[in-house]
């Protein structure tokens, strides 16, 4: 039986038709849920690599449909949305991703004789850790600091993609969209009936009952 989690039975999407969601919110979240799974910016191989990296950075339970992290990043890069700044030695976002993935793959082949996506988890983690610490600097990086790529680009885009998804909001008990209806109860341990109930002291049943009525 899958772990019911901290907020058993809570699904933020059940609020979609309530006053917590305005039309604009429905429109943008619907579009996100329908994000094309076929890459439009990445190649198929790059896409597989992004998925492999995301599996290490934001591992997902197998008991539910995964958040399509790679597809959401592909969508952003396809549309050309940028952060609005980059560090010294950092190319623009599309180029940074292309180069960073190729360089990581080259490191994987040089050290382990196989592409990144095909490595076992611990070896992938070790490479990512080195990247985070700025310890990768092969020629394929083209002078781009691996640490900056990790922090400013790769990790950031991955967590931003994951936590843009309603599945992730439900997982952490976030209230999600809240306009025009906001919140009324603001103090410690105060929950509006349209917020997630947390399973505490092992009482998942009570939380589950409350979460079924969230709306």
């Amino acid at each position, binding site marked *: 039986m899958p772990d019911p989690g901290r907020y058993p039975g809570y699904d933020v999407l059940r609020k979609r038709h309530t006053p917590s969601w305005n039309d604009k919110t429905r429109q943008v979240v619907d579009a996100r849920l329908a994000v094309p799974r076929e890459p439009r910016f990445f190649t198929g191989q790059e896409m597989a690599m992004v998925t492999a990296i995301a599996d290490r950075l934001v591992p997902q339970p197998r008991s539910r449909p995964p958040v399509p992290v790679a597809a959401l990043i592909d969508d952003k890069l396809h549309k050309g949305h940028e952060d609005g700044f980059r560090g010294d030695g950092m190319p623009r976002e599309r180029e940074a991703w292309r180069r960073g993935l190729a360089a990581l793959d080259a490191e994987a082949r040089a050290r382990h004789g196989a592409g990144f996506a095909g490595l076992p988890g611990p070896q992938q983690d070790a490479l990512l850790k080195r990247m985070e610490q700025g310890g990768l600097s092969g020629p394929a990086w083209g002078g781009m600091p691996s640490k900056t790529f990790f922090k400013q680009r790769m990790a950031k885009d991955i967590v931003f993609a994951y936590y843009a998804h309603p599945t*992730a909001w439900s997982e952490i008990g976030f209230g999600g969209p809240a306009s*025009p209806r906001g919140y009324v109860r603001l103090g410690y341990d105060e929950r509006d009936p349209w917020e997630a109930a947390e399973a505490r002291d092992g009482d998942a049943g009570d939380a589950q009952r409350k979460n079924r009525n969230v709306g």
Partner: protein
Amino acid sequence: MSDDPRHAPRAGHGRAPDVFRPGAWVPMREYGEDEAVDFVIVGTGAGGGTLACKLAEHGFSVVAMDAGPYFRPLEDFASDEAEQSKLYWTDDRISTGENPIQLGSNNSGKAVGGSTVHFAMVSLRFRPEWFKSRTLLGYGFDWPLDWQEMWHYYHEVEEALKIAGPITYPWGPPRPRYPYRAHPLNAAAMALAKGCEAMGVAWTETPIATLSAPRGLAHPCVYRGFCVTGCSTNAKQSALVTWIPRAIAAGAEIRDLAMVGRVETGPDGLATGVHYHREGRWRFQKARNVVVAGYSIETPRLLLNSATARYPQGLANSSGLVGKYLMVQANQAVWGKMEAEVRSYKAPPSLAITEHWNYDDNKDFFGGYCYMSQGPLPQLWANTQINAHGLWGEPLMQEMQDYNHQVGLKIVGEMLPQERNGVTLAEDKDQYGLPVPRVSYSWCDNDKALIAHSLGFMEKALGAIDATDIWRQEDDTCHLNGGARMGGDPRTSVVDADCRSWDIRNLWICDGSVFPTVGGVNPSLTIQAIACRTGDRIKQMATRGEL
């Protein structure tokens, strides 16, 4: 018809969007490009939007341009972090130095209303001594402004925005009553209050620019907590829903999606108008006066990009100080977890504050800081965890499970002005073919001492309320200021006390870039107060024939 305000301008044909009614319009006066208007203003944020209102109400003809779109919050804003990144200035910029700053969402808006469309609404007055910090406190630079005069203009802004604040403010000289009552505390703010009480320092409800009672067509804050991604209810008193509607009613014209690339100067060396890009081509607007109000990166960039044979270093730059003495504010935090649920996503992020360390001079460093309660939304919070806390994989997912139990305290701290911090032009070009800004930032020892002091104090404050898993976020900064500072001497400043450039007397700068020092409070109230003062001064000078 597509009605995406990012794709086609909304203001024009005699009308502007009515920000209070979906799909509706208000009449707007328009001016021809060949008709020299009294003032063309570049940027419609805290500085430009406020000044446009004041000048129009004083009877001047005003065209105010903004590179960003003209939103109607009620129909255009989603309750969604990702979607609302459309509020930020995301054109290419390079950030470098020993402590490169994050730009984009962290400090730069691009919309009619500027960064106030996504600001956190904290509305604080400077400590009076900061206007003379060199003379009275021994660091930084003196402002050419008098604090008592500023006190008068702060009051004007607080009334215009119906600031909700406490009945008595614990620090500084007496101030008049805040127009609206303070908001109730959320759990995150109660944590700040309890920590302060345990540490023996005062706290108060944060004076904040969101309504605690109905006002006109806007209803009060509904405590939805998406403030820094734009307020879809209009409770937030941004320039977009306050100064700009007033400006239009008084006869100003707003041009949205209008990117100014160059300020033109004539044979006499005076400004003649601006070249701007709108609807696919470059245009020229004639003006008797040009006001630059693009904030601390874009203002210096535009002045530098407007260089001519006569002004090879850029406009208003005989001092060589355009783009120099840029200041951010320290924005470090201490985070922890409470046994009880906090759910800090509810309500505006900073509902309680202490300014204790702004008013205590027994410290071993210059400057001060305030700190406030926090309420990061999930994307921002996860990025803080991976980038500042170094968590990923299972530890990250575990930590995120405790999202509803997080509490945090975050400073707004004074960094010292340094000549080496600033804006220059890079080789790279943006989508208009204009050189992009290169921003360099490095902390000095005093900045580091202030940060260390604040982290130590906040850590104790969280410990005192039995928070667990306490950790320090050591690297964050916020708000930009400086880059074209005001002063009393043309050799050491770019503009005078009236925001008027020393070199080109019909060129003005009215935004956060005129700050000589930053102080330890959020800047927008001061920017707006200066703009109100500038508007009144321009009227006086015009009456006396001194323009």
